[in-house]
């Protein structure tokens, strides 16, 4: 009894998430609307200008940024997807036994080889312009 958990999960189990979602939205909406209603509004051109340490802002803020960030994002996408493959494996680790472990070792070895390559290629060398 102490260890009682539902043996069979039902789609309805997910229903409370909706409840929570409604609550969260309600709270956020409340906060936004209230502050909108309560707060004063005094607009002016100078005030609306984007903050740039007190000087006039120069150029468009949405300029291209260092490709390093892009690389990081791409790497994340790739590695994250590989990690996804490990979740089912981890959950079923004990059933898969030694064979599964060795297979995952191969997988990890390949993954880490790619990882080592990427690191060695200098993706994280932020001080170098590329």
């Amino acid at each position, binding site marked *: 009894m102490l260890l009682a958990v539902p043996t069979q999960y039902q789609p309805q189990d997910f229903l409370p998430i909706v409840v929570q979602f409604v609550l969260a939205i309600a709270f956020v909406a409340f906060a936004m609307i209230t502050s909108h209603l309560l707060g004063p509004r005094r607009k002016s051109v100078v005030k609306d200008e984007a903050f740039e340490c007190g000087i006039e802002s120069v150029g468009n803020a949405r300029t291209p940024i260092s490709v390093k960030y892009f690389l990081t994002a791409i790497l994340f996408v790739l590695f994250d997807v590989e990690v996804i493959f490990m979740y089912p494996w981890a959950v079923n680790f004990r059933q898969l036994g030694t064979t599964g472990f060795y297979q995952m070792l191969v997988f990890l070895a*390949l993954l880490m*080889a*790619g990882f*080592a*390559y990427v690191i*060695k290629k200098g993706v994280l060398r932020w001080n170098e312009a590329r």
Partner: protein
Amino acid sequence: MNSIILLSVLGLGNLFLGFRRSNRLLLPVMMLILGLVLTVNFIDWNEGAQPFFNGMLTIDNFSVAFTGIVLLTALVLVPFSQKYVLDGEANLAEYYSLLLFSLVGAIMLVSYNHLLMLFLGIEILSVAMYVLAGSDKRNLRSNEAALKYFLMGAFFTGILLFGMALVYGATGTFVLSEISFAVQNPAPGFESLKPMLYIGMLLMFIGMGFKVSAAPFHFWTPDVYEGTPTFFAAFMSTVVKTAGFAAFLKLLVQAFPAANAQGIWLPTLTAMCVLTLLIGNVGAVAQTSIKRMLAYSSISHAGYLLIALVAYNGQLEGASANGILFYSLAYSVATVAAFGVVKLVADARQREDYDGLNGLAKTNPLLAFSLTVSMLSLAGIPLTGGFFGKFFVFSAAVENGYIGLVVFAVVMSMVSIYYYLRPIISMYMRDTDAETAEAVPVTTFQAGALLLLAALTVLLGVLPGLVAGAL
């Protein structure tokens, strides 16, 4: 399977070798790797069908033979990357490794037994090629080729996948033999799912048709080949096509062999075949750039290979499979030589039109000779491998009664003689001008490779029995 493992591991090793920044080392190592894998590959010859990954991959004679072709093609192609070595290309190790990895994809394509492996094979092959197509980063044409190839490739992969999903929905399995079983022994309620099966099948054909650049899904080919650096374009038009056709054949023979299915796909495939032949050959006639001509020629050869698909006769060891095997080998060898010469000439003379070849026979007899041999082979003139390739494919078709198709194909190959002779005429019968008076620099290494290719082509043309009927 050995070759897949070796290629992956050595490909990775090659990647790390790139950190030594020694391009001189890379080329021999690459050739060594390919030679080693090629040798190891044939260990599996006549070992019977060996299933891997719960039968998702099957290594049998069919796959070993086609693996041999793609590996051999890569091996003889690699010497033409020597310019990268000499120029000190910084990413050479990456290029080589991508080639090795894409070969893994090609091997998966020729040995898959499960649609997942087909999909993965195509993607491993294609994704590497997307990158390589754009490897000339500063060149906008290369960029465009990469983008076009990528967008279209991803698009048609989507179509292929949708087809797979529908076939899965109709049959409940991804395993080729089980699909065929499910079609032949319909479960209750299967009738209502049949349209889904057929639509899925056709969508898969469209996807495969794109990968082998069969009309009307060929439109990307000339542009992409033209923009892609020649070395990789050669890889695309040989390895990708060979693997694609082997995969296509497996799909037809093992998944949809049933007569009722045949009634559905035969007209489609025949129409594709006729259209491909027409567009490939007529298109090639109109080209002024040799590279584009070779691109259209690769389309037209897809047409000839499609004839073999149309005429398949039931098993992977039949005349069609043998025809495709021989044709792919002859075509690959000849195309590699053609692209190789075009690359050498284009690198030296900075032009890719026919006139760029003027007087080549005087300045570089060897280049002229090997391009001649390969052109004759592509045109299907006897004494070269191309003739027997066409011969086997056509006889497979005649044997199965597709005489009209063969007559059309023969007419089209007459057309093809026109554009294959044009480089020969330029080289031998036109005089040099100021731009083409100087000899194209060729290293001994490349000369050796070209001679080897010419010898291979002639060998295939004189002793076809070495390869014919191997399966």
